[in-house]
């Protein structure tokens, strides 16, 4: 057990940053769940909205990716 406290803080922060993944998971699940519930109500309109769903997923996912970026910065850049 040796090392400096700054590195320990960086590693703990990188681990904490991973909790952001949970938020992205909730967001993506919410988008797709709502898409499917809408698609089951009106299947004829579903196909035209698939692209919109993917855009929504991409935006929800981007914020999870930012937490991944924070983790990477803490691991390798600080």
């Amino acid at each position: 057990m040796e090392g400096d406290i700054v590195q320990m803080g960086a590693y703990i922060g990188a681990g904490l940053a991973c909790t952001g993944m949970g938020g992205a998971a909730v967001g993506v699940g919410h988008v797709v769940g709502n898409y499917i519930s809408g698609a089951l109500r009106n299947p004829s309109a579903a196909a035209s909205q698939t692209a919109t769903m993917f855009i929504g997923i991409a935006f929800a996912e981007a914020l999870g990716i930012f937490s991944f970026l924070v983790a990477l910065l803490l691991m390798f850049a600080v």
Partner: protein
Amino acid sequence: MAEEATGGLQIHPMDQFIVKPLFGGDAIHWYTPTNVTLWMAISVLCVVLLLVIGTRGRAIVPSRMQSVAELAYGFVYKMVEDVAGKDGLKYFPYIMTLFIFIVFANFLGLIPTAFTTTSHIAVTATMALAVFFGVTILGFVKHGAGFLRLFWIDQAPLVLRPILAIIEIISYFVRPVSHSIRLAGNMMAGHAVIKVFAGFAGVLGVGAVFPLAAITAVYALETLVAFIQAYVFAILTCVYLRDALHPHH
């Protein structure tokens, strides 16, 4: 940490992303051929094989290669038409180029021991910045200062508009960041997960069936992700293009 020292569990999930020169030496200059440039060249070669050589027959009843190429063309064409509108079709070649290159780079990266060029932010950021600057310049050329109305949302109450304008401007400038990191992050994370499970398989002996099953599942997921991320990159380019062509919401 202690296990690593004794040579037990050795996982180096990030080693696969190291850029190495192809021919000796360690120095990397801008002209050095590296594994990145090699795999980029291979993906460009595959694109040429599919889209140029594959469609050379121009048959009425298409061969297998030609029908795949036609399928890809029609898929991207419809996507640009649906998302960016009829006047966005003028920029279809650019989006087709981006999409087909990313698809091939992602899928070639899935071959074991291959190098995933799109897992490097330097590669994806180049493409994302090209889209960002291209779209911004296009917006100003088409609409002049009227392009700034993209940030001024007319439907909102007057009190909220300045606040929304600030948020819109921030989100506009975050676009290239999220656009590039989404692709690179997805590729890098998926490949690193596969390597971590492979590290488990190395020390478990007979129990290695479980990590191997997990690798199979993750690999299947990665195949899906490789396509979806290329699709998302292209469709977001279409969204940004639509914003530049029609800034009045």
